[in-house]
């Protein structure tokens, strides 16, 4: 059974803290993504990566960075957490380049509250 695992289901952090959200996939997928989900706004792409040590900005990268040192692991970093970063964060992965399979598999999400 395919699996994307996010290290925490719930996190509470203080304003100004540096926050790390971890994501691990066991499907040997090349592509990994970080989205945030907010009511009424859907899923918005923060960053994505198509290979180890590679990263691309998504639609809302401000205030975030990412790290991909190993193929299976993709970390989202909030450099200095702010209250407007309170949200549900979703990690996803998908299969290598190709026409037939672009399904994205999602983790269960990390609900982050910044106080």
């Amino acid at each position, binding site marked *: 059974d395919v699996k*994307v695992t996010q290290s925490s289901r719930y996190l509470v952090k203080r304003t100004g803290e540096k926050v790390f959200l971890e994501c691990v996939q066991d499907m040997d997928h090349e592509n990994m993504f970080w989205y945030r989900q907010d009511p*009424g*706004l*859907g*899923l918005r792409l923060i960053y994505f990566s198509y290979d180890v040590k590679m990263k691309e900005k*998504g639609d809302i990268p401000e205030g975030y960075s990412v790290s991909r040192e190993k193929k299976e692991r993709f970390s989202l970093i909030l450099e200095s957490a702010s209250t407007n970063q309170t949200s549900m964060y979703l990690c996803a992965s998908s299969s290598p380049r190709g026409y037939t399979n*672009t399904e994205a598999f*999602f983790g269960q999400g990390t609900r982050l509250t910044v106080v």
Partner: protein
Amino acid sequence: QQQVKQSPQSLIVQKGGISIINCAYENTAFDYFPWYQQFPGKGPALLIAIRPDVSEKKEGRFTISFNKSAKQFSLHIMDSQPGDSATYFCAASVTGNTPLVFGKGTRLSVIA
């Protein structure tokens, strides 16, 4: 600019009825159109997907209808059940390695 517009935002359907959710897209290069289903406390999961070489795809009670000229696609849930109550997202991407672009979601409630 919102590339994928989804409506309605919320939907209440009687058990046994038909649920219909619509999406419209801007980018004519999109060639992959999935629908994701999300239950509370869970991540989204792929429900059904279509490519523009067909106008309809059916899997059980779920059907995608696709209108390339109108740049629209929709999800139909036949014989809706309370267990279908969830948030549904349409999405689109260009084959290759572009990330999925999601609509804003529709919260479906199926009432008995």
